[in-house]
């Protein structure tokens, strides 16, 4: 009955009927979406309240357990089956704040639940996988080293980087080769960041870095990172390796990084290797070579350094000025400051800033 009336209305006023129908559909959808949003909000608020309640329940007991006043069992009984992963996340807060025997207690508290994170390493979201690797490395001590080593080959460079940083933090040089062999995957990270990461492993990693610097099988970018890391470590035994690299390398960045290393650790016998790059076509290489000559060079290099003061690259001019200060040849710098050349102003500034 109502159906036939609506049909008659549609036949008589089809445009109006369609308009009303459209409005009803959109209105219904809007109400539906609003209801979903409200439901989600209620659900999230309820979850947040639940987490807050749980943390309030855990906190006093965890403080007692962490400072050794209560056994871990007192806290474990408060962790429900569905809250185990939440509990592991909660423990990360303590892991960031304490070291020593208390930190070991935190690791012990997390130990029974860490295996639950392993399935997360196969999740599709790289961020989730990276988070799982980070949690395992933070709370799992060395128990999960194999898992973390495998994560170096994760399809996502983010996960691989988290794994590499975790391994570097262990300070164990045995992982250095593994990290170096995957270094090409980290080409979107700054070379200085990668070098610092390797250098945090300490002096024990130096032999692996020296091998990487000497090995032409590695990409020049990786060898450059190795040179930078050796410089951060002030690894004097790598000077001979660096000199050999300067003899054979052709990559601009590798030569520049090696010259930078040489400026810190080079000795007089390495001067020929440095000098051969002082007249390079690449300004960055010339600048680094002049800087290295300033640190390691002999009196016979002074005319060359003075000559570099007239270089077309202002970087080379700056390094030449600094090299003259380094070599104690301020008389030459004063003479350059009096000349009417573009570098004179830089010489004046260097003289004004030089230590008395």
């Amino acid at each position, binding site marked *: 009955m109502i159906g036939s009336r609506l049909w008659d209305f549609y036949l008589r006023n089809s445009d109006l009927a369609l308009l009303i129908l459209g409005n009803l559909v959109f209105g219904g959808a809007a109400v539906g979406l609003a209801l979903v949003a409200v439901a989600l909000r209620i659900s999230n608020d309820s979850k947040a309240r639940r987490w807050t309640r749980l943390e309030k329940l855990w*906190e006093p007991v965890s*403080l*007692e357990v*962490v*400072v*050794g*006043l209560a056994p871990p069992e007192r806290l474990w009984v408060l962790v429900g089956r569905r809250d185990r992963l939440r509990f592991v996340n909660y423990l990360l*807060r*303590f892991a*960031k*704040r*304490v*070291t*020593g*025997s*208390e*930190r070991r207690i935190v690791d012990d508290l997390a130990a029974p639940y860490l295996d639950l994170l392993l399935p997360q390493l196969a999740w599709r979201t790289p961020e989730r996988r990276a988070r799982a690797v980070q949690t395992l490395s933070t709370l799992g001590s060395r128990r999960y080293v194999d898992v973390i080593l495998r994560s170096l080959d994760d399809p996502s460079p983010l996960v691989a980087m988290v794994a590499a940083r975790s391994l570097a933090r262990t*300070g164990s040089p045995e992982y250095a080769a593994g990290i170096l062999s995957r270094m090409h995957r980290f080409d979107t990270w700054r070379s200085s960041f990668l070098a610092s990461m390797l250098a945090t492993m300490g002096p024990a990693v130096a032999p692996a870095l020296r091998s990487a610097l000497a090995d032409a099988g590695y990409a020049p970018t990786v060898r450059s990172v190795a040179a930078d890391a050796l410089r951060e470590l002030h690894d004097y035994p790598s000077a001979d390796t660096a000199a050999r690299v300067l003899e054979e390398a052709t990559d601009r960045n590798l030569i520049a990084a090696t010259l930078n290393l040489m400026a810190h650790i080079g000795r007089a016998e390495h001067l020929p290797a440095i000098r051969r790059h002082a007249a390079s076509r690449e300004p960055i290489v010339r600048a680094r070579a002049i800087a290295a000559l300033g640190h390691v060079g002999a009196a016979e290099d002074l005319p060359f350094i003075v000559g570099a003061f007239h270089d077309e690259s202002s970087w080379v001019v700056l390094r030449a000025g600094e090299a003259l200060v380094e070599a104690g040849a301020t008389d030459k710098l004063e003479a350059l400051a009096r000349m009417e050349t573009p570098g004179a102003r830089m010489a004046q500034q260097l003289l004004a800033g030089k230590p008395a």
Partner: protein
Amino acid sequence: MSPAGTSGDRADPYVRSLGPHIDALEIARSALPTQPAACLTILRLAEMLERSSAQHGFMSILEAAKAVRAAEPAALPEAADRLLNAMLAARVHPGMRQQAILVVDDDPTLNRLLVAILEKPGRHVLVAATAVAILEALASKRVDLVLLDLGLPDLDGRLVLASLRKNPLTATLPIVVISASDEEWVESECLALGAVAFVKKPFDPIALGDRVTELLAAPRPEPAPAPAPVPDPAPAPEVRTGPIEVLLAEHDPLTAQIIRHRLGREGMVVRHFASGTAALKAAQNMVPGLVILDAMTPGIEGIELLVRLRALPSYRKVPILVLSDIGSEREVVRALGAGADDCIRKPFSPTELMARIERLLERR
């Protein structure tokens, strides 16, 4: 070895106490041919000397006393003579007291190795495998040095170290920690807890032997005597008897809670302020026994707060410890220069923090 065991009026108190025993033994020995009952006196003396010589590390007397107790009646006079000679020799050469080293490790192979490395003439090595065995050994024998492994089956070695340091009788006993841990914090924690040295496993036997010889040769203050009962219970007016009040300026609530719990465990009362401004305001109305400042407090920054606190006359002698997130040399120097008594880097070991606090409070 203690310089008290060398000569003259600074001789070991045990050596000085031997006089009456020598007299008694001489009398009993001379009476033995005519009065067989004197053998009972000799045996009783030997029993007593066996106990006391073991406690004080006089192994020659110990062995002679044991021989007396084990001797057949016919061999007793000869054994008594040997005991007498051993006692007389100890009086003439008081420095002959054997030094005792207590090796504590639950690995029997390592214990055997350490005994082989450390045992020398004039020195004997005792072995314990558990924390309970350490306490038993220290209660029954005089020990000059302890080599302590951290991984004991019944208790963490660090807790053993801390409890030995708290005991007045073992507070000055040199304790060398031996550990396979390659984590830096373990070493710093042990040194902060009072270990005199930290040796990493695997160790160089020659270097370890040299280090032990060096430590045994170093003078060691006599242990503090056990507190005597005080007949008059009236407390001195200047002595603070209540719990130590701690002013804590720390912006991170969880770190503050951890510190509060750790210090609360030692009976301290912590008043926490989340900002430098609030801490300074509260400081003007209280004089705590200790101040702990976070270098990064909001409001007034930690180091500035430190300077302002030191400017208050009542805070000139209050120990102040700074917690630093950065922990760089520059920041540590800045904090110490501004008047901090100590500086500790975050994240920190609460046990190490407590050990440092105890030292600061002792120094004051």
